[in-house]
């Protein structure tokens, strides 16, 4: 595999480092040039913008063609390349929106979104507390806990397992988000109703995955536990729960995204005047799109951070699993 990846780098005559440096310099210069040309506009801007894009693409691909020997450098590259791609997209977005005079209602430039985030930190923070720290976390913990406990309980009865698993699988595919109006009616406008939506949304993925995970230990290992005369709980704690961990973490990861979506969408159905979903629908009504984008940026950040946190925990908990264990 590494030979195949090395080939394009060797094929070009210039050393990869030299090409890289040239592309980097060119890209930065073109970006500065494009921003200087913004007041001029017209075809010079278009030309420089296109050149910037081509040069950034060249830089990205020459970075991607590298296969560094050291592991640390490789990891750095695997972060740097997508980061560079992201920055390129942001610069192009800014250039296109400002160069073509796209109305900010349609698509605000990233700079406007950035300054909106800086200006209304307290609002964004209040929304985050309401939606994420209260509704999402409470619902996530309750829902995942309930799903997990139910799975442990029905694990003792093969009959219930056979009955609940197909239903759980079916329910996981249903648009459960539709229970949001019902929950808002039952639990009122404040965060408990959103937490309830989250509970319902995350329960079934957790149930199905835990039940599947508890069956993951092989017959050989189970027989071994039996020769040790291990009780049900002993073999559950020492063998089957650890073996189920990859499945449980899979559910935790799926649920992290589902929970945030559930809480935000539930706020479209009624909420006090704070919360991410409320802010999005209210600011859309006022056509204040930069604020909507700011809220979405916060949601994206929180979503990927919590996902990352769970992935980190997974590495710790399932260090023995082949997908984590390297080499």
């Amino acid at each position: 595999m590494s030979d195949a990846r090395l080939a394009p780098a060797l094929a070009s005559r210039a050393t990869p480092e030299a090409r890289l440096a040239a592309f980097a310099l060119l890209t930065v210069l073109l970006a500065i040039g494009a921003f200087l040309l913004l007041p001029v506009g017209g075809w010079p801007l278009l030309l420089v913008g296109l050149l910037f894009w081509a040069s950034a693409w060249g830089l990205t691909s020459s970075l991607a063609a590298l296969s560094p020997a050291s592991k640390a450098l490789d990891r750095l590259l695997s972060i740097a390349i997508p980061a560079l791609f992201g920055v390129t997209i942001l610069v192009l977005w800014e250039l296109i929106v400002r160069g073509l005079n796209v109305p900010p209602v349609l698509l605000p430039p990233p700079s406007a979104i950035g300054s909106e985030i800086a200006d209304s930190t307290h609002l964004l923070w209040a929304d985050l507390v309401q939606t994420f720290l209260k509704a999402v976390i409470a619902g996530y913990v309750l829902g995942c806990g309930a799903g997990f406990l139910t799975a442990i309980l029905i694990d003792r009865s093969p009959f219930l397992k056979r009955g609940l698993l197909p239903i759980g699988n079916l329910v996981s595919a249903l648009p459960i988000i539709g229970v949001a109006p019902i929950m808002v009616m039952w639990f009122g406008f404040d965060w408990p109703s959103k937490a309830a939506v989250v509970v319902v949304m995350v329960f079934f993925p957790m149930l199905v995955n835990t039940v599947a995970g508890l069956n993951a230990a092989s017959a050989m290992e189970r027989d071994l536990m039996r020769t040790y005369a291990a009780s049900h709980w002993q073999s559950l704690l020492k063998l089957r729960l650890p073996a189920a961990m990859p499945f449980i973490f899979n559910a935790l990861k799926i649920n992290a995204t589902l929970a945030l979506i559930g809480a935000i969408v539930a706020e479209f159905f009624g909420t006090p005047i704070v919360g991410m979903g409320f802010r999005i629908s209210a600011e859309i009504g006022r056509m204040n799109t930069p604020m909507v984008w700011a809220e979405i940026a916060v949601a994206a950040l929180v979503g990927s951070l919590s996902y990352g946190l769970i992935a980190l925990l997974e590495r710790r908990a399932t260090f023995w699993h082949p997908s984590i264990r390297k080499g």
Partner: protein
Amino acid sequence: MGYTGPLRRLTRRLVGGRTVPVLTVCLAIVLVWYLAAIGLNWQTETQKLARAGDYTVTEAIAATWSAQRPVLPAPHQIVAEVWKTVFDVRPTSPRSLLFHAWVTLSSTLLGFVIGSALGILIAVGILHSRTLDKSLMPWIITSQTIPILAIAPMIIVVLNSIGVSGLLPKAFISTYLSFFPVTVGMVKGLRSPDRMLTDLMHTYSATPFQTLLKLRFPASLPFLFTSMKVAVAASLVGAIVGELPTGAVAGLGARLLAGSYYGQTVQIWSALVMASVMAGVLVWLVGLAEQAALKRQGARS
């Protein structure tokens, strides 16, 4: 062994299989539902009855199961409402549930088809370009952790403001939601042939396009169908949420919103049942296509 007649075998297959357990669980759910309906509707209904005079417990229970605006409608009320709005009303009238289901279904399907096609295209691009793989793929994976659905209202309103309305904005959201799972699944699937097989194609001096068409594409089909099941469910959710923000007048999402505005719980539940049936049927249809396609490849089910 004792008697193993057809009846015994049938019983064993039913109990040992999934039919009886699933039916038992369903029955239990319905039972709990009826009990919950009594509990949740008790207060409002008994108050109503008390105002009219004396009442017995049986009357009160009957009242909780046939309330006008129940906190939790009993299952038969939902079934009756679905029946009434599906079969007793002309499908073209806005009072018909089929009409709303069709509005949602059309944008779901349009979005799903575009999203899947886009997902496959991007997966092929990622397979053949190392730059795309290294730069775009991490973003696609990260974007799965982002609550994309939060963008839905903005897309609808913004597209409306430039004059694009109706089916397309909703289909756009469905496209957006369905293309991620397909891309990720397809990249995995297209890479699933092992070294031996790709080497074989190499010895045939197959072009990259031929390898794609004759080896990688067939090999990716199981992955494609698995992710298409996820995608079609996501695209239905996208279409429903897309109907929420603008006060849309048609579609299952609009039904949900109207029901929540006017406290019509039975209407909300019937829209939910319809959406669930649709999701089930859509996933089942993809499953059928999967079986047909895999059977042609010679897989044994």
